[in-house]
C-alpha cells in the first residue's frame, strides 16, 4: 500500500513526484506508520500548486531501511479528520497546523494553541485540564522562573505532594522563524538557523546546510563533513556533560555539579577554538565549513580533549557510585517503552526508554566515516536511564572526536564560497541530523523560481515535551525539577 515517495536523508526530489493521496489513504499511511516500523518525523501544511492552497504533508522515517517516505493530501474546506486519537505522536503537529493555517483537525481531543495564545479568529480553547475534588489543588509555575532559564508555564494537578497531571504551555519565545525563511535563502538565513535553538547551533546549521546541498546538488567536501561531525559531537559533549552536572546539582550533589559546570565550559571553549564562538556560530556553512582546523590547532584540541576526558570520567563516575544519588535517580520519572513509542519520542529520552532511534545509526550515510557507531539504549526509562544514556554517549563521542581529529581527510573545507541565491526549482528535500537532544528535521520545498516555498523545522523538543508531561504522572511534585532536567528540552526550539 505504500504509494509514498521514498527518499534518503539529505536528498531532494522534484515536488511533482510526491504522490497526492486521498484523505483516507493519507490517514491510513500516518496512523499505520508505527505498526509498519515508521515514525512521524514531520507533519505540516505545504502550500501546493498554483493556488498555494495548504496541503497536508508528512515525512515518515523508516529507520530500519534508512529511508524517508513523503506524501501529501489536499485539505478540503479548511478541515481534515484528526489522526491524533489513533496516532498520538501527531497530536502537537495537528495543533500547530490548526493554529498556523486556520484549518480544523476534526475530532482532535485537545485542540488548543501551541504558541500563539491570541489567535485572531479563535476557534480553539486555551483552558488547562483541571481536576476537581476535595484536597485537589493546582500549582502553577512560570513563565517567570526563579533561575535564569527560558519561559514556560507548567500547570500541576496535585493531591498533596502527588502529581496526577502536568500540562505544559509554551510559546513565549515564538519569533516566527519558519515564516521568515520563506522566500529565502537570503543573506541572514544561516544566522536565523543558527539561533533556532542557541544550544543546538551546530545541529541546526548542519541540518540546514545538508538541505541546501541537496537543493543545489553540490555535496559537502570530505574534510568539511568531518569537521562538521567533530563540531556536532563537541556540542553533544558540552551539553551532555553540562546536563549530568545539572542533574547532580538538582539532587544537591556538590562534587559532580561543580566539576561538570567547569568541564562544560572547557568543552564549549574547544568549540570556540574551532570556530571562535563557544556555540559554534559561523562554523558550518553550505558545502562544508567556513573555518579550517590546522594541524597545530588540532593538536591543541587533542591535548585539551585528553585532559577533559580524564576529568569527566572522574567527576561523572562519582554519580554511579554514590548510593544517595542513585536513590534519587532510579525509578523516578519513568516513561515506558510503549508510551515513548506512541508519543514518538526522539534522542536520548527515546533511547533511555528502550527505543533504538538515532539518526546517526539509521540515516547518516557516511557522516561518521569509518568509526563504528554505538547505538546506546537502556530499558528503564527513568531519570537514571536518561542520565546513563547521556554518559555512554559522552564516552563514545570523546573517542570519536579524538579518532576523527587524528584522521582528518585532506582537501578543501568547502566546495564553494557562496551559495547561489536561487536553488533548484520545484524541489522537495528532507534533512535529518541527530543533535544532542535528538532528531532535528528540516524540510524545504522550493517554488519554480528556486526560492523557499516552505521551510519546516522540527526541533527534537517538539516531540519530547509531551514525554516530560507523561513522566510526571503519579510522581512527587518535588521530583519535577529533576525530571525536567533529565529531558532538558528547548523552549525556543519548540517555539521557533
Amino acid at each position, binding site marked *: 500500500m505504500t504509494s509514498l515517495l521514498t527518499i534518503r536523508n539529505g536528498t531532494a526530489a522534484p515536488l511533482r513526484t510526491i504522490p497526492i493521496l486521498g484523505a483516507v489513504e493519507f490517514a491510513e499511511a500516518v496512523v499505520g506508520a508505527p505498526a509498519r516500523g515508521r515514525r512521524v518525523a514531520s507533519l505540516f501544511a505545504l502550500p501546493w500548486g498554483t493556488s498555494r492552497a495548504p496541503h497536508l504533508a508528512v515525512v515518515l522515517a523508516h529507520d530500519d531501511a534508512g529511508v524517508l517516505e513523503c506524501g501529501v493530501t489536499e485539505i478540503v474546506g479548511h478541515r481534515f479528520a484528526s489522526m491524533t486519537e489513533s496516532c498520538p505522536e501527531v497530536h502537537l503537529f495537528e495543533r500547530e497546523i490548526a493554529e498556523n493555517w486556520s484549518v480544523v483537525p476534526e475530532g482532535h481531543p485537545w485542540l488548543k494553541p501551541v504558541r500563539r495564545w491570541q489567535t485572531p479568529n479563535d476557534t480553539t480553547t486555551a483552558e488547562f485540564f483541571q481536576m476537581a475534588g476535595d484536597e485537589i*489543588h*493546582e*500549582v*502553577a*509555575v512560570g513563565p517567570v522562573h*526563579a*533561575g535564569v532559564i527560558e519561559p514556560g508555564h507548567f500547570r500541576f494537578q496535585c493531591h*498533596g*505532594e502527588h502529581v496526577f497531571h502536568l500540562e505544559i504551555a509554551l510559546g513565549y519565545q515564538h519569533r516566527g522563524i519558519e515564516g521568515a525563511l520563506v522566500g529565502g535563502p537570503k543573506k541572514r538565513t544561516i544566522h536565523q538557523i543558527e539561533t533556532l535553538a542557541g544550544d543546538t547551533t551546530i545541529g541546526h546549521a548542519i541540518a540546514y546546510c545538508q538541505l541546501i546541498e541537496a537543493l543545489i546538488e553540490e555535496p559537502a567536501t570530505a574534510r568539511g563533513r568531518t569537521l562538521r561531525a567533530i563540531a556536532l559531537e563537541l556540542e553533544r559533549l558540552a551539553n551532555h556533560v553540562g546536563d549530568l552536572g545539572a542533574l*547532580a546539582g*538538582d*539532587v*544537591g*550533589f*556538590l*562534587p559532580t*555539579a*561543580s*566539576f561538570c559546570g*567547569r568541564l562544560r565550559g572547557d568543552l564549549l571553549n574547544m568549540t570556540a577554538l574551532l570556530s571562535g564562538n563557544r556555540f559554534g556560530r559561523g562554523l558550518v556553512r553550505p558545502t562544508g565549513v567556513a573555518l579550517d582546523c590546522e594541524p597545530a590547532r588540532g593538536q591543541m584540541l587533542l591535548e585539551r580533549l585528553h585532559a577533559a576526558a580524564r576529568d569527566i570520567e572522574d567527576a561523572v563516575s562519582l554519580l554511579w557510585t*554514590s548510593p*544517595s*544519588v542513585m*536513590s*534519587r535517580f532510579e525509578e*523516578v520519572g519513568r516513561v515506558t517503552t510503549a508510551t515513548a513509542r506512541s508519543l514518538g519520542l526522539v534522542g536520548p529520552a527515546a533511547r533511555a526508554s528502550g527505543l533504538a532511534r538515532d539518526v546517526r545509526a539509521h540515516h547518516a550515510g557516511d557522516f561518521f566515516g569509518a568509526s563504528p557507531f554505538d547505538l546506546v539504549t537502556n530499558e528503564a526509562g527513568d531519570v537514571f536511564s536518561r542520565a546513563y544514556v547521556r554518559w555512554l554517549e559522552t564516552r563514545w563521542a570523546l573517542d570519536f572526536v579524538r579518532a576523527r581529529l587524528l584522521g582528518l581527510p585532506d582537501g578543501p573545507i568547502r566546495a564553494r564560497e557562496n551559495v547561489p541565491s536561487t536553488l533548484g526549482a520545484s524541489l522537495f528535500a528532507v534533512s535529518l541530523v541527530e543533535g544532542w537532544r535528538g532528531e532535528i528535521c528540516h524540510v524545504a520545498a522550493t517554488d519554480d523560481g528556486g526560492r523557499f516555498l516552505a521551510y519546516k523545522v522540527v526541533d527534537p523538543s517538539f516531540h519530547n515535551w509531551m514525554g516530560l508531561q507523561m513522566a510526571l504522572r503519579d510522581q*512527587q*511534585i*518535588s*521530583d*519535577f*525539577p529533576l525530571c525536567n532536567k533529565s529531558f532538558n528540552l528547548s523552549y525556543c526550539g519548540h517555539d521557533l
Partner: protein
Amino acid sequence: MLLSVLLHGFACLAGPVLMVGMIQRTKAVFAGRRGPPLLQFVSDLLKLFRRGVVLSRTTSWVFLAGPVIGLVTAALALLLLPLGRHAAWLSFEGDFVLFACALGLGRFFTVAAALDTGSPFEGMGGAREVTLGALAEPALFMGFMVLARATDAGSLSDMLGGSMTAAWRESGASLTAIGLSWCLVLLAENARIPFDDPTTHLELTMIHEAMILDHTGPFLALIFLASSLRLFVFSLLLVGLVVPFGTLETPVSVLVALAGALAVALSIGIVESVLARLRLVQVPKLMVASVLMAAFGAVLLVGNA
C-alpha cells in the same frame, strides 16, 4: 568571671556568623573553588538591610510578624543555653520547656507568614516544614528527658554544663543514642542536606526556602539572621551533649564550646559536599528514625535505673 561573660557575649555574636562562613568555605573547598570571605554573611545582611521591601497586597501583619518573631524566639533560645561551663544568661528549673516552645513558636509564625501570602509554593513549603517539625520536636523533647534524668538537673545550664562528664560515665549508651538523634534534628531543623537544600533555586523542591520566597530586604535579612542563630543554638546543644567540659576553666570551656560549634559547621559542610539530598518522601522516614533513636535512649536509661 568577667572574662567568661565577655567571651560568652562574643561567642553568641560571632558564632552564628562564623558558622555560616565556615559551611560556605568547606563546600567551596570540596567543589574546587576558593569560596567567599569568611564574613561574607555579614556583608549580605548589610546589603539586605539597605534594600527596600516589596509587599503583596494579599498579605497582612502576619507576614511581617513572621520574620520578627522568628528572630526573637531564636534569640531567646540562645539566651537559655549555657556555653561551656558558663551558665546561660537566663536559667531556671524547667527552662528547656521554654527553649523548645520558643523554637516551636518561631516555626509557627514562619509557617503562618508563609500561608499569609496565599502562594502555592509557600503553602507547600509550610506543609513540609510542619511535617518535619512534628517529628523533630518529639526527638528534641525525648532527648531533654533523658538528659534531665541522667544529670539529675532541671535547667539547661545544669544539664549541659559540667555535670555531663559524670553522666557519660553513668549512662553513655543512652546519651550516644540521643547524640545521634540530635544530629538528625540539627540537620532537619536547619534545612540542611540531606533534608533540604539551602542553595537550591527550584521552588518545587524547597522546604524552608519555599516559605520565605516572598520576603524581601530587611525582612529577609531578619530571616537569615534567625536561621544562623538557630543553627548556632542547635550546634551548641549538640556540643554541650558530647563535649565533656568536666573540670576545664570556665573561660576556656566557653572557647572550647565555640570551637565545637565551628567543628559542627565543618561537619555540615562535609556532609553537604558528599551526600545528595533525600527524596522528599523519604525525609519523614529519617525523622522517624531520629525519634526512635531518642526513644531507644530513654528506654536504655529507664532500664539502667
